[in-house]
């Protein structure tokens, strides 16, 4: 039986069913997969449903300018772009780097502190309850060592969790990757892992989703096929007809 930990529904009905009601509040979840598997869409939908429920969202864009992201964002039937802009704060991290004088290739522990403090400041200022960092891999690239990556994720997770924030860290994987994250550390320190992938079956390419780990709740570990639609992400169980899965 699950402990009665408060849940944060993702708003994606099937995913919430898989998670027995949603992500346990305060968890830091790695949304991981290779390009084109739906990581950003899933994360944005998490924020959109939060905003609809009156929970402010923060989207920290590391790799793509948020303006461009919004242009290419799927038009949800249930939420307009104007409403997204009202309920979600979009921040491009290069602007933070610029402001903090952190335009360098490698971060030290002081830089990590400053970055976390600034994210926490925004969360406090706007009473943010849902955070997405897209992608954590790009930040990790500047941290370089496993120790620093671990330090960054652990401290950020703790700080956000204490503020009642549920956080999605988007992780980029190469299709040939064996684990669930680029540096191997991200998956170990996260409370949850949602793996998005592509499955090739007889020449067809299916988008898939699997909850690999989620602390604080029992959950299905089955693989589901995913569709990105104007009414949000839909999932159905993967039929066991064979096929080779790759990330």
């Amino acid at each position, binding site marked *: 039986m699950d402990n009665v930990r408060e849940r944060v529904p993702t708003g994606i009905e099937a995913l919430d069913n898989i998670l027995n009601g949603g992500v346990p509040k305060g968890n830091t979840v790695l949304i991981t997969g290779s390009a084109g598997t739906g990581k950003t869409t899933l994360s944005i939908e998490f924020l959109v449903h939060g905003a609809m429920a009156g929970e402010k969202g923060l989207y920290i864009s590391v790799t793509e300018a948020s303006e461009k992201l919004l242009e290419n964002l799927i038009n949800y039937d249930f939420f307009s772009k104007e409403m997204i802009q009202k309920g979600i704060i979009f921040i491009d991290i290069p602007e933070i780097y610029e402001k903090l004088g952190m335009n360098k290739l490698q971060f030290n522990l002081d830089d990590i502190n400053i970055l976390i403090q600034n994210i926490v400041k925004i969360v406090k200022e706007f009473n943010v309850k849902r955070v997405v960092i897209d992608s954590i891999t790009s930040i990790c690239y500047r941290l370089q060592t496993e120790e620093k990556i671990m330090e960054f994720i652990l401290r950020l997770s703790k700080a956000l969790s204490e503020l009642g924030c549920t956080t999605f860290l988007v992780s980029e994987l190469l299709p040939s990757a064996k684990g669930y994250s680029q540096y191997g550390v991200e998956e170990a320190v996260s409370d949850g892992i949602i793996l998005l992938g592509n499955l090739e*079956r007889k*020449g067809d390419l*299916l988008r898939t989703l699997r909850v690999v780990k989620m602390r604080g709740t029992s959950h299905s570990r089955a693989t589901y096929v995913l*569709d990105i639609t*104007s*009414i949000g992400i839909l*999932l159905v169980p*993967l*039929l066991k*007809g064979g096929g080779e899965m790759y990330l």
Partner: protein
Amino acid sequence: MNIDELKKRLKEYNEPLSLGINTSLSAYIDTIKLLMDEFTSGKNIHLIYISATIPSRSISSILEIYGIDEKKVFYVDCISHLMMNVAESRENTVYVESPTMLENIMLKTQYILNKNVKDVAVVVVDSINSLAIHNDMKILSEFLHLFVTFLRSRNSYMVILSIKEQATQEIMSIINFVSDETLEVD
């Protein structure tokens, strides 16, 4: 049974069920026409037509000839993409790239149900024989079993069409397994 008897039988159903209809090739078009007419006219029922045999455009043209209103009909077209025949987008049609993408057939049906259907829906699979050409029997059985269960949970019907002349023993076994009743139409 003949088409008139099928019509009478369809009128008797009051609760959502899964129905197998094994129709002869000569009665195939009449069966489609009857299903469309019977399930959509004057009732609060939407019909989702999964076309794996004939492109949805052709089914639509047939209905037009017979003067059947398509207002409550949606198509999940699994064959036009394969034939590279998706020149125009139609408001009541969603396309699945290939009849081998069975999960996507369920996903597109779910999409139509969530977006457009507030009440009961009838999902017609046309046909199990065509799906059997593109998929092995094990995955096809699994698909139909899951699909029927999903539709029941949505208080909706499923009608699985089979063409008698193309139906193997294995296909009939699947239909009998997932259907509450199988009807033979000549």
